[in-house]
């Protein structure tokens, strides 16, 4: 890439035609207020899209795409760019025909319509949803060149929903209620077990994201929000909640979403997402283009609580500085951090290290592998390294 080393406030050689010529948009009328009843991004932002990695999966109906983190800022992921993971394609559910059933160890087995749910007390919360497999392709070493692919299975959204506790109270829990199973109405009938303590604590039955109805690919008209816990549990197109005295050991909590360790044994019910962070700019898809002042930014999150601090190194972990946390820093939400720095073309090895209010410090990949080996697939929250070369090009690397 061509690097521009521009001296401070240098003069231009000749007047810039972008200024001296009247642009079309300054002369002629643009489209009017009826043109886009529901808006979309500018045509100049056509490259800001979710992307999938075709070789990852056998087909695209049980597959994943990735949020372009390097194109975003702040803490809200716009709905159009929330990564998708489905197991039977996007269910297009008619909300008039959608039902939520509660059965099992309850006093009354109940059926709710969407209207019923919208008549219950509701609340709004901003939470991250991270797939447990996020960064999973990186367990054995640096693989994918771009934070969209290494870390893009996360989004952060304001949900509107009914506390699950209220719904369970409507049904009335039997005293031996210990687990619930949540089940989707999609062609995969996705199902997961959740301990009753979590269900009664902060789970929401959500019908809106970022103010508007859930998107189809995010579970329209109803999904469960399981704050801080792995995304697979946030069952979409939620149609049923069964209350039981034991976990179900469904396919997504046995065959998948169990963590195979080096000794051949596996952890199960690894629900909470550990503290993690990533520098989104610079990154392979967003190289440095200019010497001089530059903005380094990234996101940090913890399923255990609230981010308290993020440190950043530019020299591969020899020296660290504490980044500026900006904007609302909320529990189980993404937090945004910045380091405003000056770059003169030297090679950089950039890392970020998140800490949360339980005292957890994001480990290096080596520290993580020392405990878990290379076969875990899930829960890779190791520190990411970006190498910035003299020409600004940025690569996904691992370092000693």
């Amino acid at each position, binding site marked *: 890439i061509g690097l521009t080393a521009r001296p401070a406030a240098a003069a231009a050689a000749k007047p810039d035609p972008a200024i001296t010529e009247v642009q079309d948009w300054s002369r002629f009328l643009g489209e009017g207020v009826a043109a886009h009843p529901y808006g979309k991004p500018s045509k100049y932002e056509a*490259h800001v899209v979710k*992307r999938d990695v075709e*070789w990852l999966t*056998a087909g695209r109906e049980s597959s994943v795409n990735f949020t372009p983190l390097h194109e975003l800022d702040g803490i809200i992921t716009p709905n159009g760019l929330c990564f998708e993971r489905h197991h*039977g394609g996007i269910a297009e559910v008619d909300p008039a025909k959608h039902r939520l*059933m*509660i*059965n099992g160890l309850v006093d*009354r087995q*109940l*059926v*709710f319509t969407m209207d019923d749910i919208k008549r219950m007390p509701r609340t709004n919360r901003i939470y991250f949803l991270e797939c447990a497999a996020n960064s999973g392709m990186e367990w054995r070493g640096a*693989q*994918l*060149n771009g934070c969209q*692919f290494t870390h893009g299975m996360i989004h952060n959204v304001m949900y509107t929903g009914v506390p699950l506790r209220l719904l369970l109270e*409507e049904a009335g829990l039997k005293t031996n209620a210990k687990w619930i199973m949540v*089940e989707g109405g999609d*062609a*995969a*009938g996705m199902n997961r077990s959740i301990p009753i303590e979590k269900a009664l604590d902060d789970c929401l039955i959500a019908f809106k994201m970022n103010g508007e109805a859930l998107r189809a690919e995010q579970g329209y008209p109803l999904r469960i929000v399981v704050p801080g816990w792995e995304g697979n549990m946030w069952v979409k197109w939620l149609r*049923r909640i069964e209350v039981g005295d*034991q976990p*179900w*050991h*469904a*396919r997504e909590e*046995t*065959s998948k979403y169990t963590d*195979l360790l*080096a000794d051949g*044994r*596996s952890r*199960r019910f*690894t*629900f*909470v997402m*550990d503290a993690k962070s990533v520098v989104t700019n610079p990154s*392979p898809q967003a190289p440095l283009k200019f010497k001089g002042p530059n903005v380094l930014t990234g996101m940090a999150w913890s399923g255990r609580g609230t981010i308290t601090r993020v*440190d950043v190194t530019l020299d*591969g972990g*020899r*020296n660290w500085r504490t980044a500026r946390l900006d904007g609302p820093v909320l529990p189980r939400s993404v937090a945004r951090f910045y380091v405003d720095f000056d770059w003169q073309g030297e090679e950089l*090895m950039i890392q970020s290290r998140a*800490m949360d209010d339980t*005292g957890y*410090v994001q*480990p290096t990949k080596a*520290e993580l592998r020392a*405990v878990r080996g290379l*076969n875990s697939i899930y829960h890779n929250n190791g520190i990411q390294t970006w*190498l910035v070369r003299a020409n600004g*090009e*940025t*690569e*996904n*690397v*691992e*370092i*000693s």
Partner: protein
Amino acid sequence: AEAGRLGLGREALPEEVAAWDIDIRPDGQGLPPGKGSVKEGEALFLEKCAACHGEFGEGAARWPVLAGGFGSLKSAAPEKTIGSFWPYASTSFDYIRRAMPFGQAQTLSNDEVYALIAFLLSMNDVVKDDFVLSRDNFTAVKLPNEDAFYLDDRETAEKHFWRKDPCMTACKDKVEITGRARVIDVTPDDKDKSMKVE
């Protein structure tokens, strides 16, 4: 909290619960009446499943492998099948009934699911070829890897990740690059010009 009830929703009818209550647990809760043999399962599998999963559950193309993989879990290429990895046979009933065949979910009869599982268990050397699986003998089937699962122990096994005052200055001497994504070169880049940095 009876007093605090809103009175929203309505009682589910037995037919409604029956229609949706399709989950199966390891203790057998949820298992419907029915039965099926390895032999019946083999025929069904060839007809409805083998296109994706291979004639012996070995997986066609990149579709999931359902059998084999024994002893691979500590290797660099673990193969996690019903036989080599799954802790409970009940999971296969719960999953196949709700999700398979892929794109034709919830079309199998209970007998068909019993038969398909009998076949998959035999492909995984858990039962003999003349085995007939039924609600009665289902919970007697034990999968070999069951005991290898244990509860999330990160808070103890990874206690050292909770630490005070991580190092801020002169934390290491030298740093070497030990791996590069560009060497592997598997990143999709055709569609995104902004990713072309060379």
